[in-house]
């Protein structure tokens, strides 16, 4: 018997393929942002689009995030389906008014009269010594504010499927992609930045978490890079006879409570791992959901792993110290099992 060879793509190519397919399907889809044309996006998210669709639909913008994100809003209100790229999520400070006062609120303030079918895609994450202004994820900052769907896919398959869903969605979607999961030649070469991606168009829902690994002893909820670290940790824990269930959150807003609660009711233990700041963050939100809705299912207190409340430092040793990783996850789970 012959097995068909699986088609493998990097994260960035999966994203770019989704955008290209939607641009072919729908003349109203276009892309704008800084260095997204000939360069193909600093993190490769628009690779090949300029060659295929030309400068009328793939627009390099000046360094004017307020103007071009605002323009995407104005164009979306006119029935276009723009995809705007904010090069680093850290740059949100220069354009947050357009994002949260306008993109997120206009549909609501108009009583549903105005639709903004647009995608704001942005790179997140650290681990490569880019320091405090280029390494954040800011997941919770965006997920906190109502009116935006916020997604953070972690595999090439999901990057493509969720991008397709995001473009087709009639609501504003903040699409966060992790720099280290793009599979770029000039960053760490990570196995999980390459994965199976079917060529034909497909969608992955924007409101469902994904159980990446089943287990009975403990639930580990991760987001993007942290999901992969959780998977590494789970393999090591398995050698010690601990079976961890790993959930890739994928959708930050709306959050898939059901998948988390169902898992906790099975494992009775919860560890949440996040590459965002600890206080008031995603780990706190998930812990609160489980406390409110499944407290008596728990056999041990919830553990949270996240960036201690400091800006991301530059030097390797300092950054490694603040970022959660497989070692810290293994340690937290073992501690939790011992306590029980």
């Amino acid at each position, binding site marked *: 018997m012959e097995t068909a060879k699986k088609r493998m793509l990097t994260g960035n190519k999966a994203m770019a393929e989704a955008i290209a397919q939607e641009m072919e399907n729908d003349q109203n889809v276009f892309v704008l942002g800084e260095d997204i044309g000939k360069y193909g996006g600093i993190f490769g998210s628009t690779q090949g689009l300029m060659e295929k669709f030309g400068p009328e639909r793939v627009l390099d913008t000046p360094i*004017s995030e*307020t103007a071009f994100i*605002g*323009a995407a809003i104005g164009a979306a209100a*006119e029935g276009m389906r723009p995809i705007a790229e904010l090069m680093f999520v850290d740059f949100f400070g220069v354009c947050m008014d357009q994002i949260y006062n306008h993109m997120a609120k206009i549909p609501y*303030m*108009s*009583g549903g009269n*105005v639709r903004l079918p647009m995608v704001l895609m942005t790179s997140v994450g650290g681990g490569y010594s880019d320091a405090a202004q280029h390494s954040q994820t800011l997941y919770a900052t965006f997920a906190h504010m109502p009116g935006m769907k916020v997604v953070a896919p972690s595999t090439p398959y999901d990057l493509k499927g969720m991008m397709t869903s995001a473009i087709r969605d009639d609501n504003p979607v903040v699409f966060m992609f992790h720099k280290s999961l793009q599979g770029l030649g000039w960053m760490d070469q990570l196995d999980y930045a390459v994965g199976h991606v079917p060529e034909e168009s497909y969608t992955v829902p924007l409101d469902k978490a994904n159980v990446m690994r089943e287990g009975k002893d403990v639930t580990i909820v991760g987001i993007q890079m942290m999901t992969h670290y959780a998977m590494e940790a789970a393999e090591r824990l398995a050698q010690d006879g601990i079976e961890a269930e790993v959930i890739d959150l994928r959708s930050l807003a709306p959050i898939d409570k059901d998948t988390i609660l169902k898992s906790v009711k099975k494992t009775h233990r919860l560890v949440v791992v996040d590459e965002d700041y600890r206080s008031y963050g995603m780990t706190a939100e998930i812990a609160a959901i489980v406390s409110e809705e499944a407290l008596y299912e728990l056999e041990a207190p919830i553990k949270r792993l996240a960036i201690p409340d400091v800006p991301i430092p530059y030097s390797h040793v300092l950054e490694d110290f603040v970022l959660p990783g497989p070692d810290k996850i293994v340690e937290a789970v073992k501690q939790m099992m011992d306590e029980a």
Partner: protein
Amino acid sequence: MTKFEEKQPSVSVDKLMWMYEQMVKIRYYEDQMVEAYTEGKSPVFNIGEGPVPGEMHLATGQEPAAAGMMVHLTKDDTVTAPHRPHHHAIAKGIDLKKMTAEIFGKESGLGKGKGGHMHLFDPEVKFSCGGIVAAGIPHAVGAAMANKMKGKDWVAVAFIGEGAANAGAFHESLNLAALWNLPLIVVVEDNSYGISVPKKSSTSVESNDLRASAYGVAGAYVKDNDPIAMYKASEEAVNRARNGQGPTIIEIETFRFLGHFQGDPELYRDKQEVPGLRARDPIMKLRQQLLDAEQITETELEDIDTRAKQQVDEAYQFARDSDYPKPEAALDDVFTS
């Protein structure tokens, strides 16, 4: 050639009458709003009380900017407006009943009571406004982009106050619109004050049309809140935009007869200033020009006044008669499915 056409050869009398009607409607609308807003707020002024709560920024005296531009637009052209939006909304042809119901917080309002007076959205006539200074300019840039991409000759007009011309969004947007040669017009209404701060204390140039040269776009200045001069400047700008010749900045010297918002003690301006401005009322000016041209009689003008007022009265009645939304409707419309 009639006497009027001898005096104003490039302006159609029909269009000036349309402008006059809009201006009267706007003035009467705002006058009624002063009354409605005051209800429930005396003897003690509490911003949250009465049938019309919250901030209220009225456009009394600023009618020429809206009427002089909108006379050249159709419902396919996009208009974005700032926190003082009633004159633009009315002249753009917004659904007056739904607009008024929105301001009264009613279920039948444009936004089902979720927006209020600073957040009016009527996609039927491509009108929107917002409460953040200068933020509507990029939206107009986006509408202009969409028009160009669709191959339409529709234009987009962003109205702003003179204070907004010092915000980053103004500069980013004009550079982008000029760079991409978009059909964008920015109308700067200089009513002399950014809330309380006079223009000379906030702005490095005499007038913002001078800034046009910084972006390589056209600029025009309209003095003395003059409706006919606004008509002409707007006509040129709209033609330029429709013909693919790029953006224009128009600054109009206009008058704010009322405070920044209702309840503003206006301690920052001389008590004689407003009476002086009211003596130069642009509506009375246009009315007199129409009469002088012998193109329209006093009786015909009164008919226009009556018709405009009737529409406004009906809109207020509709708003007052409408129901408040169900409280739990607050949870709807975050996302569309």
